[in-house]
């Protein structure tokens, strides 16, 4: 079977490892924070989602560039 195509997507797959690890670390910290202090959940939640959104932005810039370049 012959595959022809763009290596962009392979590169994007490698680039997505970074934000993937980052998002994992953010939610690991969030879960252990809530486990230690359940009443802090509502305050931690918005911080965790903000961190998730910022880490995810890297993956999104990556996918935009993978399509454009």
């Amino acid at each position, binding site marked *: 079977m012959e595959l022809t195509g763009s290596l962009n997507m392979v590169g994007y797959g490698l680039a997505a490892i970074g934000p993937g690890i980052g998002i994992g670390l953010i939610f690991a910290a969030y879960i252990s924070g809530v486990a230690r202090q359940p009443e802090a959940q509502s305050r931690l939640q918005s911080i965790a989602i903000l961190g998730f959104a910022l880490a995810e*932005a890297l993956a999104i810039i990556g996918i935009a560039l993978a399509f454009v370049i």
Partner: protein
Amino acid sequence: MSSLIVRSEGFTPPGPADFDLPAVFGGGSFDFLGQAQVAGVTKPMLQVVLAAVIVFVVFYLAQRKRAMVPGRLQYVGEEAYGFVRNSLGRDILGSHDFARFVPYLFALFFFILLNNLFATIPFIQFPTFSRSGMVYGLAAMSWVIYNAVGIQKHGFVGYFKLQSVPAGVTGPILLLLIPLEFLSNILVRPVTLALRLFANMFAGHLLLILFALGGEYLVFEMSLAYAPVGVLAWILFIAVAFLEILIQFLQAYVFVLLNAMYIQGALADEH
């Protein structure tokens, strides 16, 4: 875009071209920056209008009676309003001046949520915000709002000082930090805000098309031995569709959360 297509013995995988829907009304095309553009009303445009009308009508009906003991619709409306007001408005903007932003955040959240859920609702099944132009409008609106709020509160110079000079930093490092902060807070924010929603909706819908078409190809076009794999692809399609519902909700939430945080940052007092 042809460089994206991977050909493997007759199967054409879905690509960005699958999002170019034909016009519902009108038609014709014109050239813009060397690309052919459709001049007419397309499906996402109708969906935007439909979502705005549904959000308005449902919440108008929900608040019409204002009974002391709420009926079903009023209860749903109150719960929905309370969710946005408390978790997106009060917790982030602070109890002092959240009230004047709640209508904006509330309308924005349910408008985006409904537009995202259109990707799952049968017979519509197209996420409006997988067309990037729709999202740029929303991001431009929120960019104007948070900057206008900040300029109104701190004045033009004071606002840009607040956004681009980090507190407690002195010395030559400011030469590096001021351009970076300005770039990050004023210029990059609307771009990432728009791209986040667009790319999530786009990638999710593309994934669903891929599972559906790939399963169809494996079951009907290849030899019989491949058919179970095709059925597996369809089962995964259903699982991914449920994951997509979660993502659609989460992206609407994140969009409005970031809007609230940007407004809060623009309103913050200087340290």
